[in-house]
């Protein structure tokens, strides 16, 4: 086993995903204690250019038409042979719809242990994971075998994993990638919404706690008073109360508004990952134990409906005056 820390870079439609930079930042932290290099593993087809922004000591790049898009069947073959061969100290994946598909499979295929949902590496080099919707943290040590780790956002700023100094890239031939059992048929772009919430500076976000569709309207009213727009967490969108284009979080949009006002949002990691970078987060929730209060700068523990009318009124007043 060598002491390098690998990070499996994720990209989507020619863009490096933010989670990759977060992984590189976490990898750097692990490499400090292991004494190895940070190695970015990039898979793609004609995607070498994506390596340029990666803050890694080295980049291993696999180029193959079968790797042009994410296909767990193909990616697993490549990664399994790489990891088996090199046995790095640890391999980092994003806890995303790419990395999470890979990490568990590799753990089973290679019989290497897996630590899931790692939020950050503690000063002592411990893996700190977040579970139970963010209500519980766990601490574990790297195993003596190559350890696979999935990283959730929140522990590191993506900037830490980004660098303009183009790293040293080694292009490696991919093993035979035939007889794949999974094929991409097509990408379906998200329906263009009426607004692009990722560009808005004031977001009023509603979660499960708003309990019914009528209350989306109340949130709309508040947003209107503010000149902002309404967005939502997954359950609200799943209910069909707001279109998918308004969804914030893991499979929705990533937003960075000036103000993120979270109404009735509990703050599950899947949601937090889409809004943690907001400049100011204010959470209103009747459950004092909601994890949203852990990431918000300001919190109000109150039944939303007791407050919202007064709030709308005051905001409208302030705007009007």
């Amino acid at each position: 086993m060598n002491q390098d820390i690998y990070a499996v870079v994720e990209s989507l439609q020619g863009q490096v995903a933010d989670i990759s930079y977060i992984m590189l930042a976490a990898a750097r932290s692990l490499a400090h204690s292991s004494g190895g290099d940070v190695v970015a593993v990039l898979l793609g087809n004609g995607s070498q250019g994506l390596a340029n922004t990666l803050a890694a000591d080295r980049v291993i790049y696999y180029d193959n038409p079968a790797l042009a898009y994410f296909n767990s069947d193909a990616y697993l073959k490549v990664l399994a042979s790489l990891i088996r061969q090199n046995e790095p100290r640890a391999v980092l994946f994003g806890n995303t719809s790419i990395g999470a598909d890979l990490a568990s499979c590799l753990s089973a295929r290679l019989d290497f242990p897996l630590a899931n949902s790692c939020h950050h590496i503690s000063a002592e080099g411990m893996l700190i994971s977040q579970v139970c919707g963010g209500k519980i943290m766990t601490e574990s040590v790297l195993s003596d075998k190559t350890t696979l780790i999935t990283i959730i956002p929140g522990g590191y700023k993506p900037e830490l994993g980004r660098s303009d100094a183009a790293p040293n890239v080694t292009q490696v031939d991919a093993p035979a990638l035939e007889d794949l059992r999974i094929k991409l048929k097509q990408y379906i772009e998200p329906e263009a919404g009426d607004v692009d919430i990722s560009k808005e500076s004031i977001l009023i976000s509603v979660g499960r706690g708003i309990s019914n569709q009528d209350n989306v309207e109340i949130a709309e009213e508040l947003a209107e008073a503010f000149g902002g727009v309404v967005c939502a967490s997954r359950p609200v969108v799943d209910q069909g109360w707001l279109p998918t284009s308004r969804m914030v979080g893991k499979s929705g949009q990533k937003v960075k508004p000036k103000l993120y006002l979270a109404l009735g949002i509990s703050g599950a990691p899947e949601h937090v990952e889409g809004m943690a970078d907001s400049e100011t987060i204010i959470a209103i929730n009747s459950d004092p134990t909601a994890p949203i209060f852990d990431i918000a700068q300001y919190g109000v523990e109150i039944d939303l409906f007791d407050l919202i009318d007064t709030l709308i009124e005051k905001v409208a007043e302030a705007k009007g005056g």
Partner: protein
Amino acid sequence: MPERIDYWGIPYTWGSPNIFVYSIMGLAVLIMLARFYLYARIWWQVGRPEMRWDKLHIRTWRLIKYVIFQVKVLWERYPGIMHIGLAWGFFIFFMGTALATIDSHFIKFLSGNTYLLYKFVLDLFTVFFIVGAAMAAYRRYIQRPSRLTLSSGFTYSLVMIVVVVTGGLATESLRLAVERPAWGWWSPAGWLLAQLWMAIGGSAPALTSWHLIVWALHLFTVAVLIATVPSSTLIHLLTAPLNTFFSNIDRPVGELAPIAETDTGESIFVDSLDDLTWTQLLNGDACTECGRCQDACPAHAAGTPLNPKELILNIRGALHKDGPSILAGNGNTPLLVGERIKDDVLWSCTTCAACVRECPVLIEHVDTIVDMRRHLVIEGRIDDMLQEALSNLGRYGNSFGQSERARAKWTRNIEPKIKDARKESVDYLWFVGDYASYSASMVDITEMTANVFNKAGLDFGIMYEAEQNAGNDARRVGEEGLFEMLVEKNMKAFSKSKFNAIVTTDPHSYNTLKHEYNSSNGHYPVFHYSELLDKLITTGKLTFKKKLGYKVTYHDPCYLGRYNGVYDAPRRLISATGCEVIEMPRHRDRAFCCGAGGGRIWMDEGEVEVRPSEDRIREAAALEGVTIFVVACPKDVTMYRDAVKTTGMEEKIVVKDLIELVEEAI
């Protein structure tokens, strides 16, 4: 001596008129009965059997009360007087004819003063009848209130009965004009009309001939009227008494029947006409389309798809349209629930029972709605919010989706700690209920209630996390299995606790604990806190130091008032705090529902024009000098505080729980 003469002025040329009269009438009655049978048999052919022949004395008493004396019809003045004029006119004419038959064939008694009285009464009711008919015509053609179905069938019936009655009057007047008896004024209406014939100067033979013609016409129109009863609106002369007689007498309105089962023990969920009982189908045919239910219905007033009258008429329509097709075994018959009656109609009902209270012919709307909802629930045809609430009730025993352990969180600041009825015996078991336990806006009031109980020296306890939602509204949503489960859990907790009586602030829990747990709860007395506090005042255990002197109005919760008749205790209590109760126009049994009942509080509001709660707040705010809207139901606190905000009435009126007045006055 004045006496009744058989067939005055009717020639015996073709034999005794008896032959004509009785054969024509007999034929008419036969036609009527046959047609009615053909019309009505579908009730029991399609409908499920249900035993409604027992306790004849109660049923007969209901007939007397609601059919003869028409007490419910008389609740509304104009239509009440109108209808009593018409109906009693008909009763009296019917009895008059019956007496005449007896007099003619059996005992001759209509002579002398008896005869004069007889004539007078008949004439008097002729006048009443004409007044009633005029009122009906004015109402139907000039006033045209929206609740009435303005179909031509009514015109036919009205014209026919007027023709029949005026025909009788004309016959009498012609006879009087010929006879000119000294006692003519005993038939005031007839005698007055006779003056006209006399003034025209008709000769006795001419008038007698006219009499014969009018008599024959009268005979004919009566026969036509009788024969056409089953196809006219007058069918209610048959269906209304039947419906009244066969109405439910086994259960109070607050007790729903469990889901019916087939012989093989399978549950019957109502989605087709033949899943209803014959009395539920009879309900449809008994409807007189008077529209009182529609006027009283909060769902209709709010502009939701439910109109209780239309719902019942839809059952009637479906029965006569689809019933024969069902009997023929046609599998393509449109379903009652979903096709003839849409889901959203059923979901709009708040089960406030205002329709049931209003219905003059004792139609049981709520029972039928719940029966059909049960089908929707078993099919999973429920909205997302309701699904969430029901799942929460099943999982956590409360609709808030909070932990059972948080149920007694509100007790944290209360000293001394409230007794745990499962651990030590108490006099009163306080069944707190979901809203009082979990709703953030209710916690203060619940604490206050505990403090008042303490100050009154009440020996009480609660069941902490063992209490579950009582299930009243789960049952009314149609989730019978969930209701049974909640009952089982609460019963288990009851059996572990020691207490003498139950007290609750929640009328919904009160209703189900009182009526629907009774078969199995060992018959603990159940009190609403207003009743209990009222009792404590009369026994001197609770005294007030202050007289508050506010002018308040009081909102009767449906499940306390209309369902359980508790009207006076809360009012006495309010008076005892030194407040003056100014009644809203709709109060006591006519109180207007807040819109939250029957599980509506858990459902998506849908398309609503005017929220019932806002309507109600406006009603209260219009009362002069009233600044406090007193409620006695935790859901009402939530509903009306919201309504005060949304109507912008904060300056005008505040919503207070009964206990807040009590606390202030102690």
